[in-house]
């Protein structure tokens, strides 16, 4: 898929031609070196192959002086689109020691299985094989994650690229996974939300609510209306407040038990 952007009128005229995967930049790119590598890393990081003009517009507006038109070449006709990956700062707070902590929401799917295993241990869930967790994350319809990024006092403010480039953030800051929720779906009618968890140190702030609401919005946007989940008794109220109803009209979930 090609995305073309034309920047005018100040010389030199630059035609931007970016290929989404694999990570190659055409020789027409005449930007200085750093931008070149940043774009390449940006492209490599993106999981989905559907990147809209608006997304690149936001990168360009942070980097270029006069962004003008961005012409998106017509992509091949596809039956459906994957949910657009998003990443933004949900909360920012300053600690008494002057350090700044940002809680970043992301649905790009950059959840490290080891971080997830540590988080599951922290909330007291049984361990599951890492390879299975990795496969489950990869094949989920959407994985919403919350990371906390802590910057020590005196550091320069992060720019847009750093928000999107979690690898850059790792070099300079402490970044840790503090919450996750995922949904599986057939992309048309049914979806099930699994594995909603928030670090106990961060519970009670509405983070879990934000994760689940995001999933619901993304699913409803695609007209996926049968949204189900299986809640432990202590969290039934939590989900009721989010708009879920237990056993609606007598519909129940049953699970398979092999008979040895």
């Amino acid at each position, binding site marked *: 898929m090609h995305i073309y952007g034309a920047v005018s009128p100040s010389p030199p005229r630059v035609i931007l031609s970016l290929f989404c995967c694999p990570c190659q930049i055409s020789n027409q790119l005449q930007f200085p070196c750093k931008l070149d590598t940043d774009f390449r890393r940006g492209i490599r990081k993106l999981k989905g192959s559907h990147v809209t003009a608006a997304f690149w517009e936001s990168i360009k507006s942070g980097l270029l002086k006069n962004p003008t038109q961005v012409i998106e070449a017509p992509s091949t006709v596809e*039956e*459906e689109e994957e949910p657009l990956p998003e990443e*933004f700062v*949900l*909360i920012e707070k300053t600690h008494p020691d002057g350090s700044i902590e940002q809680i970043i929401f992301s649905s790009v799917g950059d959840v490290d299985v080891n971080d997830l295993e540590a988080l599951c241990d922290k*909330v007291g869930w*049984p361990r*599951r094989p890492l390879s*299975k*967790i990795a*496969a*489950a*994350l*990869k*094949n989920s319809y959407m994985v919403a994650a919350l990371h906390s990024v802590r910057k020590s006092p005196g550091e320069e403010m992060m720019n847009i690229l750093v928000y999107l480039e979690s690898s850059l953030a790792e070099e300079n800051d402490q970044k840790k996974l503090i919450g996750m929720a995922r949904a*599986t779906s*057939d*992309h*048309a*009618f*049914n979806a*099930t939300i*699994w594995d*909603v*968890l928030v670090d106990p140190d961060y*519970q009670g702030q*509405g*983070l879990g609510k*934000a994760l689940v609401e995001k999933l*619901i*919005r993304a699913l*409803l946007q695609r*007209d996926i*209306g*049968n*949204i*189900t989940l*299986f*809640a*432990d*008794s202590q*969290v039934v109220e*939590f989900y009721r407040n*989010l*708009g*879920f*109803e*237990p056993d*609606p*009209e*007598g*519909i*129940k*979930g*049953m*699970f*398979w*038990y*092999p*008979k040895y």
Partner: protein
Amino acid sequence: MAVASGIHAAYLPSKFQPPPKTTTSKTTHNKTFRPRRPPPPSLFISTNPTHVNPHHLRDLYTLSNHSCHRFPALAADGRPDPVDLDKLRIALSHSCIVVSVFSKPEVVSYYSSSSSENAMGFGGDWLRRVVPVTAENGMLVGFGRAVSDGGLTAAIYDVVVIPSLRGMGIGKMIVKRIISVLTSRGIYDIAALCSHEERSFFEACGFGEDSLGATTMMYTRTVSSCEANHMVKHVGRKLLVAPLVREPFKP
């Protein structure tokens, strides 16, 4: 305050405990009694997704009064709207397992017909009788699919058998096939959403209520008054309203 929700993949082997006994008094008087009959002479069961013709599948759903929406909008005669073909294709392409069962058209008409004329056989066409049924020459009489994340969990949807061939174990065959494919891929956490009428069927297939006592919940939030800035979606007969976007974040 607690936001961690339970997971179903309480990993092997503690998961495999016998399901809690469901109270029989609740279920017996509501059970639709269907006499058990032997399966028809020729059935072809396939897990090949290319064998599923979405048009035939839609016809099967319509014949069986089945809707892909959990809360279908019903017409005046009580039948749900026919399923949208494009959405059906998308759902099929994202189902990790599809199981379809075919039978010979004359077998289906034999069982559908109430007259006793057909009792003596299917006519003199010997060749047609001995040629085995395939996906190409057969009629779709049963279907089931499952959606999975390929590692931990799976959910079974849309298990349907044509009304005239029910009570013959075809549905059970479909569910057993889905389970065997899932377990061969190492997935043991298999869920099935079912209405009250379908419960006894899934119990017979080896399903039970959750051993961890989890509650099944579905999103049913609806609009009580019209608000312009809410995203509202028609899903079957439900009108679902999406949570508001909250940026900047206000806990």
